[in-house]
């Protein structure tokens, strides 16, 4: 039955290709949604990921950055610097707001940095300066492209008009672009006085971020200190809670579509081959042989569709950012494996649903003329 099943599938290449392409399209759709989801998930925490701090210190009770507000006295920075194992300390000011650029409005993280800080600024530049002086701004290169701006043009942050002096790479996402301005400017705009938002701490070799965070919490009152990876985890969790539902729904729809296409293809195959299945029964093949044959066909269609989708993903996805630079895509092996597993489950589900049709095939139909 296995042999017949595969031969009969490959004997009709048009049907096999159309079925597999249908499954591939559905899988590709899911892969694109997942790549957007993964890309955005990574991009949301790109700023934290790319700062060279082992521990993030913030206002007591605050545990993330996205849509959060944290204020703590700046004098806590030198106190932290004196703690054993701390080698570098830098403080930043931070707020979420809407930035106007080229007549468009962009939701943005505004990060105020000291020009001599060891970290906290842009980590990769497309053009211009990396550290802003007063009256200057570093904006994401994608914002500049989409707004038609370049170095020398101005952007508006709250009531301040700032001149673009640098374009940073990897700082744009649909949820949170990062714009860097001078800390003194942001302090004035926020009326923050002697307060800062986060203190970034670098530890010496040989001390873990966990231990360093514990020492800071013990040594300084009313602060929250989190190792970088824990801070990233908390921040991503918070950010995804706020924006991932739509993408999850789209992934579910794509997966259902894949199930439907795979199901329909296999169902059609069973209906189309009903007479041959009836013959197999008349000759003495059992239901389990026929299930195995149908399962193999479903698995072959799904495997081929999945392979085509993976090939399509690796071919098409690098092109998407060229057309739509605002979209951050990331294809992970993990998500591809997950989809592969879904494919197998789909196959099993389809065969399970079709089981009734197979058992209903009446061997007497072999006598029909």
């Amino acid at each position, binding site marked *: 039955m296995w042999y017949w099943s595969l*031969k009969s599938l490959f004997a009709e290449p048009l049907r096999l290709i159309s079925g597999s392409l249908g499954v591939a399209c559905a899988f590709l759709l899911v892969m694109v949604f997942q790549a957007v989801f993964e890309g955005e998930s990574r991009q949301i925490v790109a700023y934290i990921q790319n700062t060279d701090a082992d521990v993030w210190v913030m206002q007591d009770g605050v545990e993330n950055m996205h849509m959060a507000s944290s204020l703590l006295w700046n004098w806590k920075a030198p106190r932290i610097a004196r703690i054993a194992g701390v080698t570098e300390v830098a403080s930043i000011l931070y707020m979420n707001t809407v930035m106007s650029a080229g007549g468009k409005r962009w939701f943005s993280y505004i990060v105020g940095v000291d020009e001599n800080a060891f970290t906290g600024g842009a980590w990769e530049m497309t053009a211009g300066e990396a550290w802003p002086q007063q009256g200057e701004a570093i904006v994401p290169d994608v914002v500049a492209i989409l707004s038609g701006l370049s170095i020398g043009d101005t952007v508006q942050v709250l009531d301040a008009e700032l001149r673009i002096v640098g374009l940073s790479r990897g700082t744009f996402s649909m949820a949170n672009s990062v714009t860097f301005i001078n800390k003194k400017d942001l302090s004035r705009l926020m009326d923050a006085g002697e307060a800062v938002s986060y203190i970034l701490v670098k530890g010496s070799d040989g001390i873990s971020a966990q231990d360093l965070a514990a020492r800071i919490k013990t040594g300084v009152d009313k602060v929250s200190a989190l190792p970088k990876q824990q801070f990233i985890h908390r921040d991503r969790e918070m950010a995804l809670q706020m924006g991932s539902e739509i993408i999850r729904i789209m992934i579910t729809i794509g997966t259902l579509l894949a199930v439907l296409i795979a199901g329909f293809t296999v169902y059609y195959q069973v209906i189309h081959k009903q007479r041959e299945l009836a013959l197999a029964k008349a000759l003495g093949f059992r239901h389990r042989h026929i299930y195995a044959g149908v399962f193999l066909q479903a698995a072959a269609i799904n495997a081929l569709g999945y392979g085509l989708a993976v090939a399509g993903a690796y071919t098409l996805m690098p092109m998407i950012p060229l057309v739509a630079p605002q979209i951050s895509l990331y294809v992970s092996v993990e998500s591809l494996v997950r989809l592969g597993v879904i494919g197998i489950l789909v196959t099993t589900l389809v065969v399970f649903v079709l089981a009734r049709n197979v058992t209903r095939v009446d*061997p007497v139909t072999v006598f029909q003329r």
Partner: protein
Amino acid sequence: MSEPILRAIGLSKQFGTAAALVRAVDDVSLEAAPGELVLIMGPSGSGKTTLLSMLGALMKPDAGRIFIEDVEVSALREGQLPRLRANKIGFVFQSFNLLAALTVEENVLFPARLVAGGVKAAGARAEQLLERLELTGRRRALPRTLSGGEKQRVAIARALVNRPTIIFADEPTGNLDSRMGQEVMMILRSVARDQGCTVVMVTHDSRSEEAADRILWLEDGKLRDRKTDTHVWRRDPVCGMRVDEWTAVEKSRYRGRDYVFCSHECLSRFEASPAAYVLATGQE
């Protein structure tokens, strides 16, 4: 008569209920001995195929018992029937029912996967059958490239590959022209005579009578005796074969006169150009 291979006792099958009730087979009993070729004839709708389906363990009778080699088939559970069909029974159909994706050789070996030894053990047997049925040169061919006669020979080889004790054939000559039909009948005759395999065959084709050991007449679901004087021999205007007007199924009327045909093929040809055949045979 030696111990019968097939025994059916009081078989009945009905479909529908109340006013729509149809007694397709009504209290039929029959026997077939080893090496015997038994014809079941009768008009359309007389219950021939229903009877054959029950005898071949494809359909459960409402009443009655069926024995194949002392195994009471009608008492077997659904799960026991596939094994019986694979080991004891061969089928030949009017529409051949070859698997389109498989070659001639693969079609012949298809049921061999179900018996001990599988395809490997059946290889030599398939080889013999292909040779005997003159299919050796076509072993790699796909069914769509075969003639009707070749397809039916493949179907016969497939029915024989597991060395069944009985073959059930449903109108095996129905889709063949007269020459091919005669050839298939000779093969089935030889299968019965030379191999001792019982052949039970349902047919409309009166030409098959000459090859049969015994003819059973089924009408309205019951087996009846057919009168010996009911033959009214006529000539098929297309192929010239002798056809019994009384049992002929393929008939046509042209210019107020009735014509009978040996097969649907001949009828189709006639209907495409009746004047040509009527003039050629001088039957007008």
